[in-house]
């Protein structure tokens, strides 16, 4: 049944063009659409059991209970009774479009040389033909932050829609923020003879911070100077101070978190989002007082230290949410696995979090952390019609089966090379 469904999707939606191609992007929304009868998870904690979700020209026009009647005239009505509708999941801090087969250097565009690279921009490298993209949206990820990595200031990221002919077309929010890796107080060395990791104080810690200080000072001097020698590195920093760019601050230990946040505040950086891990637990109050949203790595990982509770990574989103923080989830490591984002939130539910609260960690909280919450992250009138319909609970393996996904109102193609191969070989073997 399901296989033939994918086959039909293939036949109807595009002419199959061969393996190396991703599904063809679709045209902009041409007529208003109404999703009728589904359970709507708004992404802000609310659920509408029997809902009406309407959108036109790529924007949501109605989000309401079916009990409140609505004129359906002119709408393409899709009955989704028994199904669930969610705002598109958002994947922050990803290498989407920059990294394909990570073991092949020619296919990797995520790390520029040098240490201070605020002027390096991910958007122009973003490859809409990345084979990862259709597999992301197949699981409900409809937006991803495409992020440079490495160095102290890795570069400037952009939020991309998981569909588009080219990067201009796919761009959702260009140059959303700058990623900065705060220096480590501890330098870790790896002994390959014994496969053990050793930690020692980083002798260059202060020197590294001084380097950052110099860079920020130079930026401010540059901004204030009435006449100046043009400098792209310094100019690209300016958005941090007028609030047009966020600072994505990566810091790995409680002390580094406090020091780095204080540093950025003293420098006058307007919006800070922290990317960290269990370390946030030790300074949760500090983060709450300073109103810093936190992006965590996946819940599905092992604790870093042997005396940490076995469940700590699973529980972390719950513990930090209880502490009053705005928590969202990301994925680190093998790029292909980022498609499991929804299940990372599901895991948090198994370890204490409310389901709708967990949904926030991959929708509205992420939108806040990226500073794009005015447009996406929840199902609210006026926001982008970036949403999907799932047969069941999209946070659980069995339920995360999408029938429709809309990006800014466009009904995108879900099946891709992987479903095609499934179909091809099932047919070869004569499986039903």
């Amino acid at each position, binding site marked *: *049944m*399901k*296989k033939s469904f994918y086959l039909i999707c293939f036949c109807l939606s595009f002419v199959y063009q061969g393996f190396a191609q991703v599904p063809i992007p679709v045209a902009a929304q041409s007529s208003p659409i109404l999703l009728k009868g589904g359970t709507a998870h708004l992404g802000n904690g609310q659920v509408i059991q029997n809902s009406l979700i309407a959108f036109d020209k790529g924007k949501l026009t109605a989000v309401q209970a079916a009990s409140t009647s609505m004129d359906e005239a002119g709408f393409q009505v899709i009955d989704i009774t028994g199904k669930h509708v969610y705002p598109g999941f958002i994947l922050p801090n990803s290498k989407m479009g920059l990294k*394909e*087969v*990570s*073991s*092949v250097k020619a296919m990797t565009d995520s790390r520029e040389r040098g240490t201070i690279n605020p002027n390096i921009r991910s958007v122009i490298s973003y490859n809409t033909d990345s*084979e*990862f993209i259709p597999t992301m949206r197949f699981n409900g990820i409809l937006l991803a932050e495409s992020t440079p990595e490495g160095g102290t200031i890795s570069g400037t990221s952009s939020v991309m829609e998981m569909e588009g002919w080219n990067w201009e077309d796919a761009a959702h929010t260009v140059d959303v923020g700058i990623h900065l890796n705060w220096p480590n107080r*501890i330098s870790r060395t*790896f*002994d*390959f*003879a*014994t*496969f*053990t*990791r*050793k*930690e*020692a*104080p980083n002798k260059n810690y202060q020197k590294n911070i001084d380097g950052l200080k110099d860079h920020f000072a130079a930026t401010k001097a540059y901004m204030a100077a009435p006449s100046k020698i043009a400098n792209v590195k310094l100019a690209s920093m300016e958005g941090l101070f007028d609030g047009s760019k966020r600072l994505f601050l990566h810091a790995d*230990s409680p*002390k580094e978190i406090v020091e780095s946040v204080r540093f950025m505040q003293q420098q006058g950086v307007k919006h800070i989002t922290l990317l960290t891990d269990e370390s946030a637990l*030790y300074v949760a109050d500090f983060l709450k007082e300073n109103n810093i949203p936190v992006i965590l790595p996946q819940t*599905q*990982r*092992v604790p870093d*230290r*042997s*005396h940490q*509770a*076995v*469940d700590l990574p699973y529980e972390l989103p719950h513990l930090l949410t209880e502490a009053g923080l705005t928590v969202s989830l990301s994925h680190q490591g*093998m*790029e*292909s*696995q980022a*498609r*499991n984002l929804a*299940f990372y939130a*599901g895991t948090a*539910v*198994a*370890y204490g979090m409310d389901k709708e609260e967990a949904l926030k960690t991959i929708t509205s909280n992420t939108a806040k952390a990226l500073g794009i919450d005015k447009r996406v992250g929840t199902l609210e009138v006026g926001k982008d019609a970036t949403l999907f319909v799932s047969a069941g609970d999209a*946070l*659980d*393996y*069995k339920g*995360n*089966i999408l029938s429709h996904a809309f990006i800014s109102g466009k009904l995108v193609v879900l099946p891709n090379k*992987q*479903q095609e*191969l*499934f179909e091809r*070989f*099932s047919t070869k*073997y004569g*499986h039903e």
Partner: protein
Amino acid sequence: MKKIQLLLLFCCLSILAVAQETFPRNDVQDTRMGAYAFTNATIVVDENTTIEKGTLLIKEGKIQAVGNNVSIPKGYTSIDLTGKHIYPSLIDLQTHYGMPEVKRATRNRGASEQIQSKTAGAYNANEAIKAHIKGSEVFKIDKKAAGTMRKSGFGTVLTYHPDGFARGTGAVVTLAESNENKVLLKNAASAHYSFSKGSSGQTFPVSRMGHIALLRQTYLDAKWFGSQSTRPFADQSLEAFISSQNLPQFFEAGDWMNVLRADKLGDEFGVQYIISGETDAYQRIQEIKNSRATMIIPVNFPKANDVEDPFDAEKVSYKDMLHWELAPTNAGVLAKNGVRFALTSDGLGKGDNFMANVRKAIKNGLAEKDALKALTTTPASILGMSNQIGSLKKGSHANFLITNGNLFKDKTVIHENWIQGHPYRLSPLTKKDFNGEYALKINGQSYRLEVSGGAKSPKAKIIVDDTTNISVKAKFSEELITLSFQPEKKAKGKIRLSGWTESDGWKGQGQLVDGSWVNWTANSKKAATKKEDGKKDKKKKEEADAPMGQVTFPFKAFGTTTLPSQKTYLIKNATVWTNEADGVIENADVLIRNGKIAQVGKNLSASGATEIDGTGKHVTAGIIDEHTHIGASAINDVATNSSMVRIGDVVDSEDDDIYRALAGGVTAAQILHGSANPVGGQSALIKMRWGASPEEMKIKNAPGFIKFALGENVKRSRSSNSIRFPQTRMGVEQVFVDGFTNALEYEKKWKTYLKLSEKDKAKTIAPRRDLVHETMLEIIKKERFISCHSYVQSEINMLMHVADQFNFNINTFTHILEGYKVADKMKAHGAGASTFSDWWNYKWEVRYAIPYNATIMHNEGVVTAINSDDRNIGRRLNQEAAKSIKYGGMGEEDALKMVTLNPAKLLHLDDRMGSIKVGKDADVVLWTDNPLSVYARADKTFIDGKIYFDIAEDKARRATLQKERARLIQKMNAAKKSGAPMKKGGSKMKMEFHCNSILGEETEHEH
């Protein structure tokens, strides 16, 4: 020039009667008797015999007599040792004293492999087999090192060249400085082995299991080689290896796990090694005791961590904290358990004090008698030299210590260390105690001078009044004194005095601040009072009485002092996924008894059973991971055909990930060798028996498995400088064909030999045993099964053809990401599959991997499992299985079987595991929810009917852990306050192994 003359003079004086007559002389003859009588001493002859007010006679470097009624012959120099003790000087069996430095070979990242030995000459095929090195031939007196060791009380050491796995012979030498000919007491005293590659640049072996395999093959080679009167070729290493077998065999092993590995290796070849361990043997004392090995144990106790800052303290592991506290109990625990051991100073750094650490061990439970034994008679007897060293018996070398009291008391000083009848003076026999108050008069001015610190470290100050002192820089000797101090704050310099001792003080000359010369005197007034001693003693006693931590199994966080035991459990009213014809039964009960599943059904009852309410919960068979790399100390060795290495040799029962796996419902796993080579090593099949020893982790009577691998990893795709064969998939096939072909030839040779009559056998040389051929032959004979790392369809197809050619089956293709393309062929061949749920595109050969792979293979009738190859995935395999419901619509029961029954089938363990069936092992998980849901948690995990994980118990362990850490942090802080040396930084952490993780080589996370 003058110095040299003095030195020469000293050397000449030290020549005793037994000086070598063969040496050229550059002076008149000056041979002396070296006859001394030490009288009125407390003589500790050995740990059992002490003579009070005794006499010791020595002559020509040997002990002539010892006892109470010894008359002193004429011609002996008499030395009165009233109040002094004499001990036999100490012996250290674990030294590299006087040996040339060994430079470890380092291989740069991505450098070419070194396949052959580069040792010049006719030596062993592996550079690290250095059995031909004779310690006595490369030994050279090292005066500095000798001085350091003598200070610690040592007189004799066993020294050897610490290079390679077989290290040649050791020599017994004294720490005298005369010359090599004199100090060498025993030439080939011992044979030495280790798990350290040393200077060898040869690539193989890189792992502990490779070290063991190489040593095993060397024993076999030696036997074969030695059986031929006309040797088949020259190999001076093997010759030496053979000829040193009758010597005491010493193995430098390391931590307790390696001690057990060394002992096991020895057992195979009938060798009982004397094994050098570390300070951690107490952590597994039962296994250490059962090994029956004589141990050599260091006293290099770990330093406390700086845990003042709570954030920084988080970086320190509980294991390190607890070991810091308990390491000093090590020797005491060994003694109490009847383990024979010697102590060594090995491992101590600069500034560490050997005797202070021995005393620490004594404060932590080691009896003084046992300490002395471990430093004298035990090492002497290990060397078979009890009549020469280790005690003060007549005829022994005159190697002894003169101390001012009990050697093991804190303030005892070693005055002299006599070696072979020659004294090495460390601190004067008589040293005046100047403690007291003196009236210091300088040029009419009077001061109150106070001297304290006793004979050992006298210091002085001037008392102005009750609260004010003037510090005085003072230097004391028997006859002379130097003092300097600033008479008052405003003074622009110091008064400097120099003088000599008088009956009740000193007098002398000095210069005032202004440079004018004056006379001075200092006369004794009264003894200075001792203060605060009582208080200190009380504090010390409190410290000693404070509770100590307990040894847990494993020795780390979440370990336990009491291992789980088998009980009768009745799980009531749960949803039971049987994996059998009964399918999923609602509201059912499962009875567990004697470690087995005793009954499955509704409304069961059993007397004496502990009932567990399963309402709303689910019961499944324990999860089995077909492919893991947790629980091992090494994963890859690097020979193209590494079939001789065995993961079973390096099971690491102390891996945190075992407990984490339990918390995810995992009960058993195959630890596979990695994918660095076409033929990898042999697997270990284990159950997650957290707290068990490495041997107890293993599944008894499990069938043999071996790792094969194909594709990018084995052809070293990521290393552009690699020269190792093969470099293409074409070459990979030939490795297999060649390996199996040779194995058959090997079998033929042995068959021919074994067919011979006993008479003919005696005349014929038995073929050489070869561990590689033997393993390959096991595969052909279907006694060992292949789990093959594989990705693309061409190579999967190829390997099945190779197996067909040699008439056996490939048991399992693991990873098998393109299995869906050849599922029909796999089915026809009879191969099973163990795959990732949804990994793809992380390297070139997996760009066609699809998450429907498991479903297609399953639909085609291939026995399919989902594996982890990753510790994170490994602890939620039930969820990975659930992905096949999403991708391809697999049924729930079939999905669950992919991580329970199917891997059991692939591992040939399905007769005892994999389903909820009466008679099978009670490896059972109680889940909080449908086990295929992301919301399910393992509530309880049973193995063999014992509860190894329980959510409630886990909570209790967290609380205990927090308390214990807090206690140890306080204790470390107290140590810091009392000035103990501290360690900065956090604990070392063992990192995760992946398929391609090679020790000593940098690898990127890949699979």
